[in-house]
Each structure stands twice: as C-alpha cells, then as structure tokens.
C-alpha cells in the first residue's frame, strides 16, 4: 500500500511501512533530528523531529505515514519548541564547544545553529560524569552524551557486539559499556566499528584524530545541517 501525505502544503508520496521522517527525507524535506539515522531502528528520544500531524504534536521519526495526513514541519511554534529542546540538551550536559574537538562537525551544534539558538535559556546542570579514556583508540566524554542511543543501535545492529547500553533512570540515566570493568578497554569495541564513529556529538571520539580540519572547512562552517542531512553524506566529518 502507498499513498500521499501533505507536508507544509507539499504533496509527498510514501510507501507502506514508512514513517513521516522516511517520506520527508525521500522527498528532500528536512525535519530536524538527532537520534534518527536512516538505516537504524527509530528511537524517538530527542524529540527534535516534533511535527504537527492533523493538529497534534508527534515525532516524525516514529510516526507512520498514513494517507491524507496533514503535517506541519515549519512554523514559529515548532521552531520555538525545537529551540527549547536543544537548549535542554545543552544545559543537561557540559557542552563547552570552544574546547570540544567535535566543534564544527557536531550535529547537536549544527542543529542549534540551524535553529538560530543564541543562548541556553535554562540554568545549567554542570554534569559530573567521568571520562573513559581507557581504550587505546577510542574515548568517551560522558558529559557530551545526549542519549540518542545510536552507538547502542550501531553496536547491536551493525557490529553485532552489543558494547553499549543506556542504564539508570531520569536525570541519572547514563551510557554504560558492557564489560566486566564497565570500561571501554575491556569491551569488544574496535576502532573500525560502526559504533565508534556514529556518535552525533563529541561524546565518543577517536583518539589522535582531533583538529584535523581547519576552521572554515568543517562540516557546518559552510553548509547548514539541513543540507548535509539530505545529501546522504557522512555527517561526522572528523575521521
């Protein structure tokens, strides 16, 4: 089965089983997203992809397309909501971009630029989670993790290693490593794994690969994330 939906006045075809996000991307329409990545099971955690479907807020990445749906993706209200959501992600972790090697290539930052986010609005949490630098090639700065679950999905679905998981509840939620010591060095991860490269932020980093691209040539220096996301290019420009 297939049919059409309407996004911001444009008629968009879909195939049965596709979400609103799938149909939008196929039609070249950008819906802001962070936890979604084509080819991976949708997760629905970041809420950046919030759109209005027949008058209600829904996550485009998990909501199935259905014939005749009227979807609003562009409105002042949605822009405000998405900006607030992004600000929440910034204050919940320690996003000191001036000293982050992902800066310029970071999807969280790229989305914030796209949304013209100028401040963080909320009081800061100043998270205090320890860095895991135990592995010879890969490190994790847990204070930059946005719990998008992409590394978890990549390790399970692509690498078949099941290295990561999200544990804990509420604000104490954290990314954990499935190894006896809980550290990366004792896990099965290797530097060639999909999970080592998929992180949209500066949480999982490849050692000795920082600051390779001059300022001005980094992914989001010149092109907006909307453009990059629809081009199907790899978005983590640092490796």
């Amino acid at each position: 089965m297939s049919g059409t939906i309407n996004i911001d006045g444009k008629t968009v075809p879909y195939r049965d089983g596709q979400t609103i996000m799938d149909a939008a991307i196929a039609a070249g329409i950008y819906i802001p997203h962070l936890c979604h990545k084509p080819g991976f099971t949708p997760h629905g955690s970041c809420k950046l992809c919030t759109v209005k479907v027949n008058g209600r807020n829904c996550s485009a990445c998990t909501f199935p397309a259905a014939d005749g749906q009227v979807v609003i993706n562009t409105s002042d209200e949605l822009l405000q909501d998405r900006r607030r959501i992004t600000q929440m992600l910034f204050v919940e972790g320690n996003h000191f971009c001036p000293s982050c090697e992902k800066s310029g290539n970071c999807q969280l930052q790229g989305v914030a630029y796209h949304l013209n986010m100028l401040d963080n609005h909320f009081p800061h949490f100043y998270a205090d989670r320890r860095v895991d630098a135990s592995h010879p090639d890969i490190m994790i700065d847990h204070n930059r993790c946005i719990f998008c679950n992409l590394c978890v999905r990549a390790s399970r679905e692509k690498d078949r290693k099941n290295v990561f998981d999200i544990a804990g509840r509420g604000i104490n939620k954290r990314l954990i490593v499935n190894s006896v010591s809980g550290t990366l060095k004792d896990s099965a991860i290797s530097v060639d794994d999909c999970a080592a490269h998929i992180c949209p932020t500066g949480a999982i980093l490849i050692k000795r690969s920082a600051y390779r691209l001059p300022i001005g040539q980094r992914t989001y220096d010149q092109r907006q994330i909307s453009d990059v996301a629809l081009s199907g290019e790899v978005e983590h420009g640092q490796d």
Partner: protein
Amino acid sequence: MAKIKVATVSLAGCFGCHMSFLDIDERLIALLEVAEFDRSPLTDIEHCGPCDVGLIEGGVCNAENVHVLREFRKNCKTLVAVGACAINGGLPAMRNQFALEECLLEAYRDGIGVENPHIPNDPELPLLLDKVHPIHEIVKVDYFLPGCPPSADVFWTFLSALLAGREPSLPYELVHYD
C-alpha cells in the same frame, strides 16, 4: 543628538571578547561618532552610570563579579551577554567538576613550583563562588552574542541594528559557539 552610552566589563572573562570587539577596526571611529563609553576596561570610569547598552564578557566566578553585574543591570537599559563564558559559564565553568577547595589547594598549596604555600586570605580579595555561573542565572539578560569570542562582525551587526532602532538578529554565518 545625544550619543548612545555604552558600558562594558569583563567578569570571569579573558578579555578576548573585548579584543574581538576592537577587531571592528576602523569602524570603531564611526561608532564613536554616535556612541560614547561609560565604565569599561577602555576608559577610566570606575562605576557604571546610566547607560543604554551594557556589554558583559565572562561568567560569574566571585563575589565582586556579582556586585558589578548587578550594578550594570541596574544602570543599563539593554544588557548583553557577550561570549560563551557569559552565556554558559564557558571553559572556566569546567572547574564546576571539582570542589572549590580542591582547586584552591592545587593552585596555592600543592601545585608544582608553589612558594610560601597558603590560600590567600586577605579580606581585600573577593571570595570565589563554589561554582562558575552564566550571567543569566544572576540577572535578566536582554540579548546574547554567542562565540568564543563572537566575531567582530557579530558586534558590528548587533550594535548597528540596536543603534538604528531595529531588532538585532544574527544570520547563520555569524552564529558560532567556538
């Protein structure tokens, strides 16, 4: 026409935002035709008087920062958080991961090359706050200019709009957090 009054200050800043402001280069001359400086590291004025615009660089890390910030808020019609530090505490807020006492002991007692080790305790010195804070956690802020530092064009775009009575906005190319 009376000149627009501008005050500027560096709290827990590095003066980099001020340097970037001066990077407007010869446009500074045009600015001085329509604006004059009140309290600022660039003038000798000690206290902030009634002003149109206050540019605040740096987060808030000690008691004196709090007093100065409040003085600026009281006197400036429009208060602007300039740079990453004023907006989110910036890199100095990385000390928020440590107890204040640990930081002081490392710097003044246990650090390499420390002579006459003791934590300075003269009452002249402002006490450090236990955490570094963005300025919006202390006072209301009207505008934010992101960047570490914001580029000269950010200052220019912002001030030009404000002086012309337009609502300031920053296009994509001018928004950076690094």
